[in-house]
């Protein structure tokens, strides 16, 4: 055990003394998440909308005015009937249609409840989400004002409907996607490089000749990166939550457990790569082109899997990140519990066991 501890200390020395690996470990996650985050969160200004006011009373006028005077929106046209909505969107200019139901103010004061329907063009899902958010908050504000001034408790319900992309794919997707890429980078790439470096420097020879067991060498190599990948996970989640307001609707504990599982999958891949490459360059090439690229392209992180050719869709099933993205998305955005994601979890577990078995078969207690 003392041997093992000594080994671990050495590993941490390596990591904290190498500026490049520190940069990869902590710099890249922060930069990537800020980059992705800000690239999609553009400020909303003068968004063109259409209004279908089926009530045309005092209240709907007041709400419309509030929305239009907010500076975020600009009225492009007034619609006359439901039938105009489709064609209004298809012209591609307006991003949102606000529909007030008939007899809006009567219903509001008589029943204490009236509803506004918000239709958004979600082909740009990020923008759609933002527009809906802004509109609803203006309506909420107005409603708050009503509560203060009157004795009744009127409730305006906003009914949101996304068209063209009802599941809002893409929104917040960068967080699960980035997590899958960064954890892979830290776990697989860094571990395989750190093991092959020992081979390249000739120190592996001496380690193998020492009483250290090969399994101790591997575990000792893996633990630091496991911890660091975990730190990265927390970092990404905190940034996502507090800088970009990405919601976490599901269980944090479940998310963390699933992340740990994915880290182990990635680590086992890293060890596997290091057993088949003899120098850092090969390990890096293997990790980057054999792992990173397929992960970015085929995990559904940037390009929706549904739109891919069938053969690539099939192939994407072998990418661990694909399953991890589904899991994280489910937990963070849909609030899924384990019951909904056990299949994906099982696939990841299976992959990990497969890679580990392969590694054990491939790992050499000697140089050849």
């Amino acid at each position, binding site marked *: 055990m003392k*041997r093992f501890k000594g*080994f671990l200390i050495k590993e941490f*020395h390596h990591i904290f003394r190498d500026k490049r690996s520190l940069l990869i470990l902590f710099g890249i996650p922060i930069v990537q998440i800020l980059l992705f985050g800000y690239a999609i969160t553009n400020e909303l200004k003068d968004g063109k909308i259409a209004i279908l006011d089926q009530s045309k009373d005092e209240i709907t006028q007041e709400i419309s005015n509030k929305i239009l005077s907010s500076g975020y929106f600009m009225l492009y046209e007034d619609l006359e009937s439901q039938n105009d909505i489709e064609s209004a969107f298809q012209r591609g200019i307006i991003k949102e249609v606000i529909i007030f139901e008939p007899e809006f103010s009567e219903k509001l004061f008589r029943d204490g409840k009236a509803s506004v329907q918000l239709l958004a063009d979600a082909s740009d899902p990020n923008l759609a989400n933002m527009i809906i958010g802004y509109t609803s908050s203006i309506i909420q504000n107005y409603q708050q004002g009503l509560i203060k001034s009157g004795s009744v408790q009127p409730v305006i319900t906003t009914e949101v409907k996304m068209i063209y992309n009802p599941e809002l794919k893409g929104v917040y997707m960068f967080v699960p996607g980035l997590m899958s890429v960064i954890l892979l980078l830290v776990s697989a790439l860094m571990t395989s490089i750190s093991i092959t470096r020992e081979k390249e420097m*000739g120190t592996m*020879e*001496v380690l193998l*000749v*020492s009483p250290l067991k090969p399994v101790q060498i591997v575990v000792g190599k893996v633990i630091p990166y496991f911890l660091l990948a975990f730190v990265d996970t927390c970092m990404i989640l905190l940034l996502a939550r507090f800088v970009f307001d990405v919601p976490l609707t599901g269980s944090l504990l479940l998310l963390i457990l699933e992340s740990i599982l994915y880290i182990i999958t990635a680590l086992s891949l890293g060890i596997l790569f290091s057993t088949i490459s003899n120098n850092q360059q090969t390990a890096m090439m293997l990790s980057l082109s054999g792992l990173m690229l397929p992960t970015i392209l085929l995990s559904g992180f940037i390009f929706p899997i549904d739109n891919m050719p069938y053969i690539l869709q099939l192939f994407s099933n072998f990418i661990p990140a694909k399953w991890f993205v589904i899991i994280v998305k489910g937990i963070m955005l849909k609030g899924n519990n384990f019951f909904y994601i056990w299949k994906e979890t099982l696939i990841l577990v299976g992959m990990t066991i497969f890679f580990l078995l392969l590694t054990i078969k491939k790992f050499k207690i*000697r140089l*050849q």
Partner: protein
Amino acid sequence: MHIVEVSGIHKSYKSTKALDDISFDVNYGEIFGFIGPDGAGKTTLFRILTTLLIPDKGNALVLGNDVVKDYKKIRKRVGYMAGRFSLYQDLTVEENLKFYATIFGTTIEENYDLIKEIYVQIEPFKKRRAGKLSGGMKQKLALCCALIHKPDLLILDEPTTGVDPVSRNEFWDMLMNLKEQGITILVSTPYMNEAALCDRVALIQNGKTLSIDTPENIINRYTKIILGVRSDNMYDLLLKLQKYKYTHSVQPFGEYLHYTDKREKPNLEELKDYLNKNGHTSSEIITTPPDIEDCFMELMEEKEHVN
């Protein structure tokens, strides 16, 4: 009972034969040297003895243990210094030593006596990263690391390669001291003149041993008379001697050319005459005892003739 017993080892990589039927024994307490150029098979052999490689054919016992079956027992008791000094460049001198002590389940303090004489020389730099040390200091640190668990057998793969002559001298002094403390040393080197410092040597070339014996015996077995010849223009002298009809071999050797004659005894007068005629009027001829390099070259040529 020998500390190392090797019989009939073969090892090939793809099409190249790295080791071709190697057999030898190493006695307890001696310095045994493997002398040969790069690519002769020294590293492959040492990796087999340190259980890092498995031979294709043949057996090897180290400290009475088989290198294939009992590799774990061997790994605990052997100190190994790989070529290129296996140090962690980004760890300090002290951290390197401490690390190797820990993985062998010991501490620096426990075996300090053994390394003391070597370590005091690098101790002033103990906070310096190993990557920033000079070649000689790296070599000393690597030796300390290989010694820290008080091994019974020290296997050093080309510890002096690329190191300047002074550091090489100092290094051999250290090996002599270790030998006195009862440690058996198996060392390889491409520098022929280091053979004289070993108790016994194996000359190795192209995966085959040319000769295994004490340096004295190897030299004694060399029967030819060597003449050292020098003149003002050494290159021309070499060319002229290569053309001389009685020349068996002529090779540059320091400030002299080493000349051997085809006949049993060279005729000095005749040789002097030949040189005079060929413009080397102020040449100097001496007789000189063979050194290990003469023997090595002679054995190499013999081997080539056999093939």
